[in-house]
């Protein structure tokens, strides 16, 4: 008997759904081994990591609060990923969105204006799109690799934020901390309940998910984008230009990330400081993949990923486990998911030793 890998005649619909589940289970198993090797009893630790955060109202509020930007950004990124447009710089677009929105919130002449929040929304979205338009322009006109440019733009955005909060935008009454003044009340999203931080910006994410679903699965343009990603030549013959996919993909990602940055500034943050994101822009890439680049899959992926953030914070405080665990879990989850995807297209068979000599190349 030997193990033989063969291509399925058709991609397996079952595995398409089972792969994320399988990846999650494997991640949990590796996580348990990891906890055990650190001298923590795995089961209680897993409980503390994944269940405890969801057992209180405050935990649920924080869960949604963190899932919202992840889902929002991932929806935007997925539109590009479907067309093979690799925007890896959502973190930078998020940062620029937060900067632009906070700028409006801090310096608008009438801080009580009811227009303030909508203006900040537009500013955040525009800034995120502008930051993504640069790699889009360079890719479509100059053939420049968008992965590298979006990443470099992220480093530049982070430095720009650092410059602002250390320099011209530093709060003079802030005891020399590198941070801006607090945003005025009219520039903040309302909490549903003063005791919890989750706020009305969550509706933006709900709308974004619906828009993403309508665009990607129900519109002709979205269909053409997917074709462009799966079969660029076919798309070109059909008269769909690659540069259209590049522009739409990057601008959608930039807009979503910029809005998420705005919502973060106008929500839980309330001001700018050098660290405004716990890595939402990068984690959203994983969310998009776990969600199969599909709107409702992304919702599940975002909830799972934000639970990882939350659990990581929790065990850091209660069990003194390192915060890097969150990123390790995220990475392992993505690695397993990518590997599990293999079984959508291939299956493993146990076969008797083949009598013919052609077998060894395909057998493993």
């Amino acid at each position, binding site marked *: 008997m030997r193990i033989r890998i063969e291509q399925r005649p058709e991609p397996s619909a079952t595995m398409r759904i089972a792969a994320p589940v399988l990846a999650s289970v494997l991640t949990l198993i590796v996580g348990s081994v990891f906890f055990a090797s650190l001298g923590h009893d795995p089961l209680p630790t897993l409980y503390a990591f994944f269940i405890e955060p969801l057992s209180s109202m405050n935990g649920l509020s924080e869960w949604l609060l963190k899932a919202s930007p992840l889902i929002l950004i991932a929806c935007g990124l997925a539109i590009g990923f479907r067309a093979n447009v*690799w925007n*890896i710089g959502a973190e930078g677009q998020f940062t620029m969105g937060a900067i632009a929105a906070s700028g409006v919130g801090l310096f608008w002449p009438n801080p009580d204006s009811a227009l303030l929040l909508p203006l900040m929304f537009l500013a955040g979205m525009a800034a995120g799109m502008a930051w993504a338009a640069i790699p889009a322009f*360079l890719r479509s006109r*100059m*053939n*420049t*690799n968008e*992965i*590298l*440019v979006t*990443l*470099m*733009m992220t*480093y*530049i955005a982070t*430095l*720009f934020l*650092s*410059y602002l909060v*250390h*320099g011209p935008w530093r709060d003079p009454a802030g005891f020399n901390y590198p941070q801006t003044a607090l945003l005025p009340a009219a520039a903040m999203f309302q909490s549903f309940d003063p005791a919890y931080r989750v706020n009305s910006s969550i509706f933006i994410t709900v709308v974004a998910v619906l828009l993403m679903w309508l665009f990607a699965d129900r519109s002709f343009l979205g269909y053409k984008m997917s074709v462009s990603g799966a079969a660029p030549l076919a798309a070109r013959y059909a008269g769909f230009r690659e540069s259209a996919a590049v522009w739409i993909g990057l601008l959608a990602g930039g807009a979503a990330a910029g809005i998420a940055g705005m919502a973060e500034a106008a929500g839980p943050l309330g001001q700018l400081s050098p660290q405004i994101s716990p890595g939402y822009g*990068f984690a959203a*890439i*994983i969310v998009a*993949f776990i969600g199969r680049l599909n709107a409702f899959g992304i919702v599940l992926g975002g909830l799972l990923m934000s639970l990882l953030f939350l659990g990581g914070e929790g065990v850091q405080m209660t069990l003194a486990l*390192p*915060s*890097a*665990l*969150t*990123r*390790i*879990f*995220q*990475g*392992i989850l*993505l*690695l397993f998911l*990518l*590997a599990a*995807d*293999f079984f959508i*297209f*291939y299956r493993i068979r146990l076969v008797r030793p083949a009598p013919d000599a*052609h077998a060894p*190349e*395909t057998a*493993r």
Partner: protein
Amino acid sequence: MELFIAIFTGTIIAATPLIFAALGELVVEKSGVLNLGIEGMMLMGAALAFWAVTAGYPMPVAILAGALAGAAASLLFGVLALTFLTNQYAAGLALAIFGSGVSAFIGRGFGSDPIEALHGVSMPILSDLPVLGPLLFRFDPLVYLALLMFVAISWFLYRTKAGLILRTIGESPQTSHAIGYPVIRIRYMAVLFGGLMAGLAGAYLSVAYTPLWVENMTAGKGWIALALVVFATWRPLRVLLGAWLFGGMTILQLQGQALGLQVPSELLSALPYLATIVVLVLISRNRQILALHFPASLAKPFRPAG
């Protein structure tokens, strides 16, 4: 003269991690595989080498540990991209994220105390020469190793049969497979070599360049190394020149800060990233130049038919 020597030697040193990482990636890409995970592999190498030094192992062992950590990380990518035929962009990104997490985990107890850095060599007579001594003969051994690797890789790729086979696989894995070359196995070896070099680059950062541990201390150098390979249009000599160019940029930026230039330090710090974009634009515009040495099967998964 003092300033010139400082800038020159600083450039060579700052370029060294880029040379290691970019040369390694060049070999990987020449075999037709795109590994975007350099940043993650470098961080793993940096963390493990630093850990080995603090644990009291001798310097060569620590550097080897860093290199092996990079190779181990690249194996993860290899399994995904070569055995499981995963989209290479996604697999590389996963490695970058994973490596940053694991390195932060390993480095959580390091604190911020510096370690004793890798020493410069002291060659009889040569190191004591005026001007030439400090310019050429007082670097740490890894600087010379980087140059040696440049020579070795250039020779391997263009003067050996194995190098020819590797390049053929990068052009057309189907044909190579039909001729009977073990495409997947050779790609695995290329990926492991790339990981080794990235780990070495990371080790250089943490035990020689800035002998202390800072989370995410690579600060994008892995991504800049990727850009260098494009900038070099997949040719080793241009990797070397490009690395020196970026090294020079880094040093001028540091010198500028030291001299108290009247510009925000953040602007100076952004220069290497801006330069990367500018250089990428300049080189990418000319599609003919890019196509000339571009490995035709780059980032396309391959599975032997049958």
